Every structure is written in C-alpha cells, then in structure tokens.
C-alpha cells in the first residue's frame, strides 16, 4: 500500500518526514510509568563428555520515573554458580568442584532535558573472592530535528581479587573507559548507530586458580560497534543488524556480526529469531595444548626457560569462531503485563574461525542460555 503514492497511507509517511512532529525515534523522553521486572536465567556450558558450569540467576529490575524529567533504575541479581571449575584445554582434567554465589546490583539516575540526557550509574558485584565497584557518566545530545543523537560516556571500575588459595592477596584491577557514539535517523524506517569505546586497564588479569596462567598487568581495549535497524512496513517487522570490531593489547582481534528479526504477531505475541557469528585471533601468550616434554601438563614448552613469561590456556583467549542461535518469544498479556522467554545456544570451535587459523586441539565448547521473565508497568 505504501508503495502506491496515490493512497492516504502515503500522507502519513510524508508527514512523519517533517521535522519536529514526533519525539525522537529513540525514545529519549523520560519514562512515563514505573516498571518492575523479574527474570530467571539458567546457563549451562559443556564440552564433549564434561558438563561444566551451571549458573542459576534470578534477578529483579525496576524503573521509576521521578518528577516528570528524572528516572531512577536499578537491578539486583543473585547468581549461584556450580560445576567443575572451568577446565582450560579440554585435555586437562580438572578435578575441583566449585560453587559460588555472586550478588550484583546497579543503580542509574537519568535527567531528561528537551534535547539531552545526563545519567550517572553505579554498580557493584561481589563473590567470596572477588569484588567489583564501578561508576559511569553518560550524556546524550540530540539535534534540533531529533534525527541525530551524539552520546559520550566515561566509566571507571575497580575490581579486587582475593583468591582463597592465597596465590595472590588483595590484588586489584582498575579500568577506565570512554565511549563516543552517534545515532542517525536516516528515514522513518532506518536508524544507524556507530559507537567507539576505548578502555585502559591496569592490574591483575590472570586466573588465580590455574597453575599456569600469567597475563600482562595491563590491557588496553578498543571496540567499534556499528548498528543498522530497518523497519519493514509491509510486515510490521524490524531487522536489527550489527557489526563489531574489537582489538586489544593482548593481540586479540575479533569481528562479530549479528542479525535479529523482530516479528510482531497477532494477539500481543512477538517472535525474534537471531544469529550471531564471532571470530577472533588468539592472545599472543595463549598456548596450544602441547606441553613441555619434561614437566608435562599443563606446562607449555619452554616454561622452565622462562617461568616468568606470559602464558594462558584459557579457551576464551584462543583463536576460534563461534556461532550463537537464539530465539525470543514475548507476549503482551495486557497493557501492563509482559512475559518473555529467551533461548540461545552457543558453540565455539577452532575450525570455525574465518580470516585465520583457529587454535588446534580444543574440544568444541557449547553453552546454552535460557531466560524467562515478566515485566509489569504501573
């Protein structure tokens, strides 16, 4: 219908192209109702023959509009983690069982002005051997026609690590990050966004529970995220696509691309299948599962000659390709209640890498992620 200019629907399309007749497409206005949400997350990962980590995480989040132009938002999560402690190379048997609780909370206050927003957020997270505190500042500024929005952000985090095995004590890690972004409404149906983030970190990056895990004490990261969302009038559906380039001083370079199709259906249902592909190079100190002939597992060849060098067998620092398939189904029960279910499967393999050779000798790593939630607006 919209393709035929001689129908009334074209009038609305033309009207929506006028400057300043609708608020910013990104809803930069203060929220107009309070909201509370409960979510329950279950995560499991595995390698062939080994069930690894299982996480159960209920969480509560809330959003409260205050005095018309302020909002206050927060969340609280309780994780319980159990399972075999993550084994690095799949050939290394890892005997120790572990279980832990993590508590995390965050709070964000935002002030909405006519063409700008300012927000301050703080977060903390704690486990028995790990504490993290962070704060962040963010501001957005929109053009007069609200079609362009610039965002700047600044954040600092302090992590304290105090492992029970006493291998190190009172270690910490400090991270500072900056973000710069722009969002542009191209047409009533197209929004593009570019975000650049740089982070500088200093401190303890190693895994204290691994015998051979010595990483540099600094890590500088940068990431460029590009997004394009397109709305299809005929189907009433949206396609959300993204590409992210990541680079850090451990020499990990990664490319991630994703697409999600959000399809509203009758009776308040929405279904959103998604796909994401990630490929990365290995950190320069990652070592393949080939061990020193004298020391054997888990020591890399040449360890004796340079015991103070950098080594890690963490599969997250290996070269690999990974695919995530997901689906989200949500249902608006009535004006104020919404329920959703999200299910994702993830698989990582050295041989799935594109743009280089994947790390050899690692068993495929699989994870699945399931989340159910309800939100209520007041």
């Amino acid at each position, binding site marked *: *219908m919209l393709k035929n*200019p*001689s*129908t*009334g*629907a*074209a*009038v*609305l*399309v*033309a*009207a*929506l*192209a*006028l*400057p*300043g*007749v*609708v*608020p*910013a497409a990104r809803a*930069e*206005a*203060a929220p*107009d109702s309070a909201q509370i949400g409960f979510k329950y997350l279950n995560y499991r990962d595995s390698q062939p023959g080994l069930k690894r980590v299982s996480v159960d995480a209920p969480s509560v989040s809330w959003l409260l509009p205050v005095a*018309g*132009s302020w909002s206050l938002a927060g969340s609280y999560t309780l994780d319980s983690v159990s399972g075999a402690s993550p084994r690095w190379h799949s050939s290394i048997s890892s005997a120790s069982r572990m279980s832990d609780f993590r508590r995390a909370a965050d709070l964000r206050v935002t002030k*909405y002005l*006519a*063409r700008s927003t300012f927000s301050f957020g703080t977060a903390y997270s704690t486990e028995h051997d790990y504490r993290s505190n962070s704060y962040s500042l963010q501001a957005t500024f929109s053009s007069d026609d*609200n079609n362009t929005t610039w965002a700047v952000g600044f954040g600092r985090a302090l992590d304290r690590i105090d492992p029970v095995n006493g291998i190190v004590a009172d270690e910490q890690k400090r991270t500072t990050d900056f973000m710069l972004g722009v969002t542009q409404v191209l047409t009533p149906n197209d929004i593009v966004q570019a975000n650049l983030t740089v982070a500088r970190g200093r401190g303890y990056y190693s895994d204290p529970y691994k015998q051979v895990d010595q990483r540099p004490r600094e890590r500088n990261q940068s990431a460029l995220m590009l997004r394009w969302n397109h709305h299809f009038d005929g189907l009433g559906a949206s396609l959300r696509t993204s590409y992210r380039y990541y680079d850090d001083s451990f020499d990990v370079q990664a490319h991630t691309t994703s697409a999600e199709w959000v399809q509203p259906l009758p009776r308040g249902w929405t279904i959103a299948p998604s796909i994401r592909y990630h490929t990365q190079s290995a950190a320069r100190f990652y070592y393949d599962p080939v061990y020193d002939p004298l020391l054997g597992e888990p020591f890399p060849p040449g360890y004796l000659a340079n015991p103070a060098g950098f080594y890690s067998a963490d599969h997250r620092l290996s070269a690999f390709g990974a695919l995530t398939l997901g689906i989200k189904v949500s249902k608006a029960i009535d004006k104020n209640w919404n329920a959703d279910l999200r299910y994702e499967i993830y698989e990582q393999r050295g041989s799935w890498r594109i743009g280089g050779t994947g790390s050899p000798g690692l068993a495929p790593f699989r994870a699945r992620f399931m989340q159910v939630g309800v939100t209520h607006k007041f």
Partner: protein
Amino acid sequence: MACGCEVRIAGLDEASAFRLAQQAIEEVRRIENKYSRYRADSIVGRINAAAGDAPVQCDGETVSLMDYADALHASSDGLFDITSGVLRRAWDFRRARLPSVADVDAARALVGWQHVERDGRHVRLSRAGMEIDFGGFGKEYAADRAATLLIDAGCRHGFVNLGGDLRAFGPQPDGSAWRFGIQHPRQADATVASLDVVHGGLATSGDYERYFELDGVRYCHILDPRTGWPVRYWQSITVLAPLAIAAGSLSTIAMLKQAAAGDFLARSGAAWLAVGPRGEVVSSDGVGDDPAAGTVE
C-alpha cells in the same frame, strides 16, 4: 491564529505547566509568523512576491514543508494543491454571489503545483500572480510541533488544540482518554459525536467553516483546483491519525474527493467519521459509536 487555541497540560505542577505552555504557544506563533501569507516579510510572502521573477532561497524547515506539499499533491491526484489559494480571488464568501466564468478561469490559470519550480533550496513560482499558501496544513503542523516540544520536555498528559485540529500526547492523569466533541455541521451549538483520544491527531474539515448559500445551494470554501468551484458532497469529515498534520490533510483530501472519499479513507489506514450529504453519520469501524454521540452541549 484566528481560532480558539488551547494547550492543556496535566500531571505537572502549575509553574512548570505554565512555563511549558508558554513555550508551546511560542512555537505556534513562530510558525504562524514564519508562514503567514499576509506578511510580506514571511518566507511565503517573499516567495509569492517573487512569482514570475527570481527563485527564493528557503531554509530546511520550509523545504521539508514543500516536500510535504509535493507528497500531498501526488497522493491526492492533484486535488490538494498549495497553489489553489488564488481561487479565493474569484470567490467572495462575504458577498454571497457567484463569480463569472472569466474570473474563475483567470484564477485557475494561476493554479498548478507543476508550475512551482524547485531546485534544492530554491523555489520559484513560474507564473506572475501565482501564490502558495501553507494554510491547508500549517495549523496542524504547528499543533504537532508544539505537542512534540511538550513531549520532549517530559509532558505525558495533555493536548494542543488549535481551533478543533489537535494533537494529544497522553491521557488524562487518571488514565482515561480525552473526549472531544465533533462540531455539528449544521447546528453551531451541537456536536454530532464525541471521540476519545489518548495519543495522536484529530482534525475536521467541513463545508460549514466559510460558505454562503444561494438559491438553496451551499458554496463552501473548499475549492476544487481542477474546476475552481467549491466541492459539494460531505458536510464534514473528521480523521483520527497519528499526527495532526496527517489527520488534517486526509480530511481535506477526502472533502476534495467528494463521493470517492470513502474508498480513499478506507485505504488511508486512519480512523474517520463523516457527515454525509443528508446529515447521516458514517464512520470507520469503532469510531463514533459511543453513547455520547449527538450530545448537545
């Protein structure tokens, strides 16, 4: 503006509401001044004064409104034409008499969106005596702009009503819709229906706003650019659309479509309510079938 204007803001303290209402009214005045065809120094005044002469450079907002006028012309098969205001030279509604064929033909020769030359930001009316006029949607545009300004400032309850063409931006503070009476086209003190609006634009075009009657025939101010004569079919058409400007343009085009309006409205995707030639009320599904319809206030 020569009409009753109302900015209603609820759910805020009095001082904030007053300050924001002032800003909204200021925005309406800005548009009125900028696009008034009565002011020689307005952009419309300057374009019209240069008709048949040199192009006039326009700012971005004016270019956007020109684009909108172009889309309306295309969507209405040429019925909505912002150059058709010159037909008023032939029709004098105060004196209640029919124009001569020569007068109508002379005015019609100056009507035609195709005679508007556009090159980027430059606009030129190619025939001396031509005029453009944003009166066909300027008021609704102002209502949308003022409402958007209020939404951006955090207002969540209220509406901007410029002489019956309005844009609502949220329910009453208790969550209930705003209820607007639709003017009865033949009884000045009555309504034909009342419509509930929470968000969006509501606009009415009718043959009762400016007209004269002669020998039992009503001649209204909505003139068909093809014939130069008033339209004759609907008494009024009200449209409910996401924006006031879309509602206003759809109701005007529907009036111009005359007997073909039903099909046009049905395909527009908007909700509508029309008063037909014999005063009968017809509407899209779910509009106007509320118990308060016909209330005499």
